[in-house]
């Protein structure tokens, strides 16, 4: 049976025009795709000639895409791109830049990391995966369609699984990878089921469309809750908020340190953007919005408490930071809840600062681990004397993570508090007050474990001198730069936001 295409699609030319017009908005992604291909090729061929080949390609590609993104910041395209699959609004564009920065830092970190340097199967494939994940992250931040969301999340997830298992040098790394992949796969299956239900309720996959919200309003509320809960299983997995956080400590602890740094930052940026996109796609008076907001507020409170309380008992630095990042997720969710379409400054600032801090922390963790083999807090005893610069930077970042002035961590917290307070004033929603109080309380709790680092490094003394392995200082200098940035942005926050 021959069917004329024109019969099926009378408006095909308009559609093609739309596609062609949409492409410039996706220039960063196109650059990344090109780089992706280039990186595969260079991994196969160029690396034999020049050891840094793929790394150079990757860095250049990410930089180019970041430049493209920053050129686009001025002209947001609020209407859907490519049939409403994505929307490159200003918020998303900032997020792309942020993601690019984090990916770049990750690439540098990997390049400087001795573990990866020693990896016998080379790191070229990792850069390839990174580029794909970068695309996925961008799309996650921009997506306005359940299908696109699903694919983007899967892309990031798959890439992350691969990164965690990349080295597979130690049993723990493979264990982390397995837990991650199985947990992730379950979550995405549940999310898929939830999306299928949402599709069934509304008949559309574009969650910004009016039809979607109409459909949700017309569905029994319990069913909407069910579907949203399922969908947020997948998103929650990426964001690591309670109760979808169980994998986090194990994976963060087991994964290679640069990967942990990446996992604790990039997917969260994209996930938060996604969360914000979904939440604010729906009108505030709709049931779906209110239901979701309530769930998220509850989750944020529990997440802040859980993450910070559980971190108290940790002795492994990376594991502790895993819980810390769970706690920060709660804080970020608080920022999302207080976010409204124009005022994303607080959220953006918090995300940026958080990424810098976490990257810095893990760089230092990695550096210390590589030099002394110390992963446990007990082995940090007296390190402050031996590696003063590293531990001073570590302490400075910890101060910022706690949110004590004059660091950017403090300004970030202040901005979030400001936004939440404003939101409470505007809506009178009492859960905002609870968020504020819990946010403040967990700040105090967090002090307890963040200051374990200086406590062990400076206040305690070691029984024996640890053995020091020689290594290059590039990671340390990177971390120093980040530390300085974290502090300078705390004193002059307008340099970032202005």
């Amino acid at each position, binding site marked *: 049976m021959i069917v004329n295409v024109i019969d099926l699609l009378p408006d095909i030319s308009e559609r093609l025009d739309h596609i062609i017009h949409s492409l410039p908005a996706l220039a960063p992604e196109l650059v990344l795709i090109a780089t992706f291909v280039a990186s595969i090729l260079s991994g196969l061929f160029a690396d034999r000639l020049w050891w840094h080949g793929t790394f150079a390609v990757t860095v250049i590609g990410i930089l180019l895409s970041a430049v493209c993104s920053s050129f686009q910041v001025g002209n947001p395209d609020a209407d859907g791109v490519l049939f409403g699959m994505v929307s490159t609004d200003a918020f998303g564009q900032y997020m792309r830049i942020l993601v690019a920065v984090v990916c770049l830092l990750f690439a540098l970190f990997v390049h400087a990391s001795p573990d990866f340097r020693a990896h016998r199967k080379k790191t070229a494939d990792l850069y390839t995966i990174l580029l794909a994940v970068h695309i996925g992250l961008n799309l996650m931040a921009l997506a306005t369609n359940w299908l696109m969301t699903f694919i983007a999340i899967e892309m990031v997830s798959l890439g992350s699984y691969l990164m965690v298992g990349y080295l597979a040098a130690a049993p723990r790394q493979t264990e982390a990878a397995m837990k991650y992949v199985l947990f992730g796969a379950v979550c995405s299956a549940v999310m898929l089921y939830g999306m299928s239900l949402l599709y069934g309720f509304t008949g559309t996959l574009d969650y910004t469309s009016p039809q979607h919200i109409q459909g949700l309003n017309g569905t029994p509320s319990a069913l909407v*809750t069910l579907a949203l809960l399922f969908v947020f299983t997948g998103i929650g997995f990426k964001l690591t908020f309670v109760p979808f956080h169980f994998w986090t400590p194990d994976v963060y602890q087991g994964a290679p340190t640069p990967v942990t740094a990446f996992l604790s930052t990039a997917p969260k940026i994209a996930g938060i953007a996604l969360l914000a996109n979904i939440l604010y796609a729906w009108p505030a008076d709709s049931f779906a919005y209110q239901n979701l907001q309530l769930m998220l507020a509850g989750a944020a409170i529990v997440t802040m408490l859980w993450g910070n309380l559980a971190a108290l008992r940790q002795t492994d630095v990376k594991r502790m930071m895993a819980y810390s990042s769970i706690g920060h997720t709660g804080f970020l969710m608080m920022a999302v809840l207080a976010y409204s379409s124009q005022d994303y400054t607080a959220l953006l600032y918090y995300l940026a600062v958080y990424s810098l801090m976490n990257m810095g922390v893990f760089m230092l963790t990695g550096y210390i681990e590589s030099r002394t083999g110390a992963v446990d807090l007990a082995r940090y005893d007296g390190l402050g004397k031996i590696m003063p610069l590293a531990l001073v930077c570590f302490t400075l970042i910890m101060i910022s993570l706690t949110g004590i002035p004059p660091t950017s961590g403090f300004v970030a917290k202040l901005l979030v508090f400001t936004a939440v307070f404003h939101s409470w004033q505007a809506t009178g929603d009492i859960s905002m007050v609870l968020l504020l109080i819990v946010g403040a309380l967990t700040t105090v709790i967090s002090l307890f474990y963040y200051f374990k680092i200086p406590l062990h490094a400076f206040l305690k003394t070691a029984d024996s001198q640890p053995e020091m392995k020689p290594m290059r200082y590039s990671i340390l200098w990177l971390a120093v730069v980040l530390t300085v940035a974290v502090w300078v942005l705390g004193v002059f926050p307008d340099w970032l936001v202005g």
Partner: protein
Amino acid sequence: MTPDTPTYPILAAFATVLFPFIGFLLSALAGKKAKSGFLAIITIALSVITAGYTFAMVWGEAPIHAQWHWFTIGNEAFHLGIFLDNIAVLMLLVVATVALPVHIYSVAYMKGDPGIHRYWTYLSLFCAAMLGLVIADNLLLTYICWEIVGFASYLLIGFWFTKDAAAQANKRAFIINRIGDIGFLIGFALLYSGFGTLDINALFGMEGLFVVPAATDAPASAAQGGLPAGWITVAGLAFFLGAMAKSAQFPLHVWLPAAMEGPTSVSSLIHAATMVAAGVFLLARIFPLFDGTVLLIIAATGTITALVAAYFALTQFDIKKILAFSTVSQLGFMVAAIGIGMYPIALFHLVTHAFFKCLLFLCAGAIIHEMQHLSDRHQLGIDPQDIRQMGRLRRYMPVTFATMLIASLALVGFPLTSGYLSKDALLIHAFEWAAWQQGVAHIIPYVLTFVSILTSFYIFRLLAKVFFGPTVTAPLANGQAGIHDPSFWMLGPMLFLAACSFFPLFTLQPLHYAHAWLLEGIGVSTPWAPIPLLHVAVPAVTTAATLAIAALAWHWYVKGKYALKTDGLLYRFSLHQGYLDSFYDRVVVGAVLGLANILRWLDKHLVDGIVHGLAAIGRGLASIAGWIDRQVVDGLVRLVGKLAWGLGSMLRHTQAGRLQGYLSSLFLIILVILLYHFIVQA
């Protein structure tokens, strides 16, 4: 200072205070070099001169008041000032005049003591503060001097600080004085809050806010001011509390006998003549403040003190303790005089008492000095202050005996002595007052009369035992003691004071007080009519009683025909000073320390208790023991910390590392949320 204020008296009064102060500063700076006491004596001598000049210029004239701006708080300016009226210049003169002989006496008495430079420093400080106290023009300044006087007293009581008893005694003295200070503080703070000024002249002067009520029941708050009558009473009581502590009124008198741990010269100056009289002086100064209630309380307290102290003095064996209780008793007389509204008589008695009591102590000092020599020479190891070890001293120390006899006669109020004048005035007015007051007020004069008889008894007991009685100390008994009257540097002051203990210093009429210049200078009119009979009866009765008692004492103690049991309840009660010390130690100090201990315990454990309680609820019975075992220190931080830690541990159990456990937990949580929603929404 207004232009027409006479400048010279002010300057002279200021100089009177300044000289000892300079002496203090120089001695303090000189440190160990100032051993001779030369500085202190010179400065106090200069003070006597200027004080005499001031007295001459001001006595009987209109009061002089001068002040300089000190500091401003808010809109209120505070001044440093000098207020010279009859009372002030009288006290100024008395203090300086008593201080000088004591200084001179000290040269010999304290000779060779390793810490003597401190002695002179402290003594000068005391004199400066005491002189400042009497001429201060506002209550704040008075209070400052009042406290510094106490501080100097503290230093001097604890002069031999290596002795534990001295270290204990000065602490006790200061703390009990502090109780009084708090009263003083509360008193003037109340006045300030009511009247917005602390100026003595503005408050209590001739045209002051308080009109002299002259022992009427009319409350003083008739004067304008912001304090309700009840608070006026409270203020009066508060001031009286201050005076009670400083003037050793029952039951706050316990510090004074203990203070005898200081050098005897110090006891004579501070704890007999001057500082302890400051309370009486203060009461006289602010007399218009007191309303009827307060006055009655004052009179009653004074009477009780006089009685109790005399009673305690009856059985003491420590020569200084007897004199100390005697002082307390006499102070009780003065306070009672204030209470009956006769503050001029209180001051009169204060002045006479200052001389003869100072003399008594100096004599006692001489005796102790010699007894110490005796003990050292013969290696007897006796307590030099114990009168049981003494006896027959008249043979060795006749001059000392003579002076001491004069002082004792003045104390008992024997005719021709100054004490006769003041004590009779006091008793007579007390009777008249009682007649005017009616009712139970009659108890007071009779008790006071009885106390004066007791006074005769204990002082004659003292004299008999020390100078006449049989002795257990062998060298004394066999005439080989080798002790003698003290040197001229000690005798001179004693003789001077003995001269001052006779009537001519105060009036030329030896048998009646009415024309004493002192009473004429600061006299007040009495609201009652004099009862002429009393003016004859009271002196006659007391003199007769004194003679009888003297005979009895002679009979009992010199002849050794002691007639009383020494194990009676009353006797023991008196000997142990009414067990007041133990009472304070056990009950008051014990209560404070107990409370403090409880609070410390609370500090340590209470919050823990909360922790434990919460933990028990939170974690079930099984772990209670573990929680209690763990020694937690304190604080909310701990509470929060423990809770957080416990929660952290609980959360930890979810993180057992088993993937499928995680998944199960995850789905369980989702399920719970779902069920909740379905139940709520369906």
